[in-house]
């Protein structure tokens, strides 16, 4: 298995789409241009790159202004700062004006590791999800991150938040797998239970499904690279088909991807649900793997959640 950070996919996608689309510009924020791999773009197109320093509020407004001047600005910084420090700028200057600003929420989730709670974005999906006009993409590996960046330009006319991480994670999808914004992907078939996942936890969900199969439980695994607009159709269909659901995300359970799924279920086809994610806590320092284990975001906890939800089915 090849391991690769999704941030690299982001940088590669940005460089590739920028060759085709001359209106794309990138804004460097908070001293992490190279660590979010926007340097690939900055090196290739120095005249289309703007360094704006550690001033996130300003950077979002500047991005809005550049979009008004006909550009497609990409801003990437830590998810905590991209989504939370600048929420008001994103809400008013970007979303209310419905401008095509593409925001990279980097180093998302607890897996940013030793930096600790201040830098672990676990609330960004919840906050971005309530903003009208916003699209949210959350690719499951580096290959898909690249496709997500291209889709953010070619398929999303307005604001877009793209979530990606710092750690190397399994790069398991094919570049041929089509990326249609708003369409979730069935990664494995099964009739007993559905595991709905976003981001790199989709790999853990597939691992869990393999082990469950040995126990005679056939889990269907669906990858949601788009959190908003959510694929309502597939959520309802899979609830009808399997009658029980487990959601997985590296994010707070409150208000996140699992909440988006259950909003659809409650209205259309209620079935028992269990949630994998952060349970209303701040993270802490530690190695990414240790943290994923401690806070229950690995295959073994997904298996337990499946067994629990099946009791209620």
């Amino acid at each position, binding site marked *: 298995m090849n391991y690769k950070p999704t941030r690299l996919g982001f940088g590669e996608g940005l460089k590739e789409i920028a060759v085709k689309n001359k209106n794309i510009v990138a804004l460097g924020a908070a001293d992490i241009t190279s660590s979010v791999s926007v340097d690939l773009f900055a090196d290739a197109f120095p005249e289309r790159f703007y360094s704006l320093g550690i*001033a996130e509020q300003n950077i979002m407004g500047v*991005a809005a*202004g*550049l979009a008004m001047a006909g550009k497609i600005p990409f801003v990437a910084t830590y998810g905590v700062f991209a989504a939370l420090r600048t929420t008001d700028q994103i809400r008013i200057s970007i979303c209310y004006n419905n401008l095509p600003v593409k925001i990279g929420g980097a180093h998302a989730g607890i897996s940013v590791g030793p930096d600790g709670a201040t830098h672990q974005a676990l609330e960004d999906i919840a906050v971005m999800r309530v903003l009208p006009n916003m699209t949210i993409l959350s690719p499951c590996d580096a290959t898909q991150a690249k496709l997500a960046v291209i889709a953010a330009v070619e398929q999303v006319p307005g604001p877009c938040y793209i979530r990606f991480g710092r750690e190397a994670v399994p790069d398991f999808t094919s570049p041929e797998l089509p990326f249609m914004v708003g369409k979730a992907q069935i990664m494995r078939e099964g009739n007993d239970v559905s595991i709905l996942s976003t981001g790199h936890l989709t790999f853990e969900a597939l691992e869990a499904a393999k082990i469950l199969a040995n126990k005679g439980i056939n889990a269907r695994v669906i990858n949601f690279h788009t959190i908003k607009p959510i694929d309502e159709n597939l959520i309802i269909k899979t609830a009808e088909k399997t009658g029980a659901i487990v959601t997985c995300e590296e994010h707070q359970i409150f208000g996140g991807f699992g909440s988006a799924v259950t909003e659809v279920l409650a209205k259309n086809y209620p079935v028992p649900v269990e949630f994998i994610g952060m349970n209303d806590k701040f993270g802490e320092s530690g190695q990414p793997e240790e943290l994923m284990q401690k806070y229950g975001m690995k295959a073994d906890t997904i298996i337990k959640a499946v067994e629990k939800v099946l009791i209620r089915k």
Partner: protein
Amino acid sequence: MVNINELEAKAKIIRADVIKSLAEAGSGHLGGSLGLSDVFVSLYFHILSHKPSKPDWENRDRLILSIGHVAPVFYASLAHAGYFPVSELMTLRKLGSRLQGHPGKEHGLPGIELSAGSLGQGLSVAVGLALGAKADKKTWRVYSIHGDGELQEGSIWEAAMSAAHYKLDNLTALVDRNNVQIDGKTSDVMEIEPLADKWKAFGWNVLHCNGNNIKEIIQTYEKAKMHKGSPSVIIAKTKMGKGVKSIEADYTWHGKPPKIEQVESFLKELE
């Protein structure tokens, strides 16, 4: 040649419409709108290069109103410039109106560049526009309008720093220096002086004018246009409530409208 008398007459008409539309709305900010009437007339009837019949004309100058709460004077200026019928001013702040309490583009009013009203954001957007214009070698200019109380927002200074860093001489900001905000005198609420020194320290070309003197406003904008190498800010001294003597400089008139029964006497004071 600019006919100042004509513009002054225009400012009077716009002030009257500000008073009438706010009284009809029953809420909104009177003081700042009256104080800025001369600035808006100078912009929409002389300084700005724009085509009211073609609001999306590519080479138009861009005006970013960072203080969305002075929407009444903005709307009255747009209407009298020909962007939409003057009669529509009386729908201000009403359900279904294109004239939102703070400018909202999605409601379709022609002439609005940016939906805004959350203080401290407009200068960043203006910087982005000015950067975009420079990148594409466009000749249109960017104008932004700010309140003095608004300068208490930290994001303004982030934006100020970036405008100077990129030497945006195609950007002219204007600060409505009326010395008051809703809670009282700016110097009591949170001192922003020495204001000119602050902007200078941030790398801006600082200009001053009497913001209630159309001739001075125009001359100062012309000076800003000529300046090269750094962005310009005009600190425009205005009187909140200017034109209606009985409320001039009274901060309690920052955030409220006139009552219907006050309209007649206020209009008389304008004469």
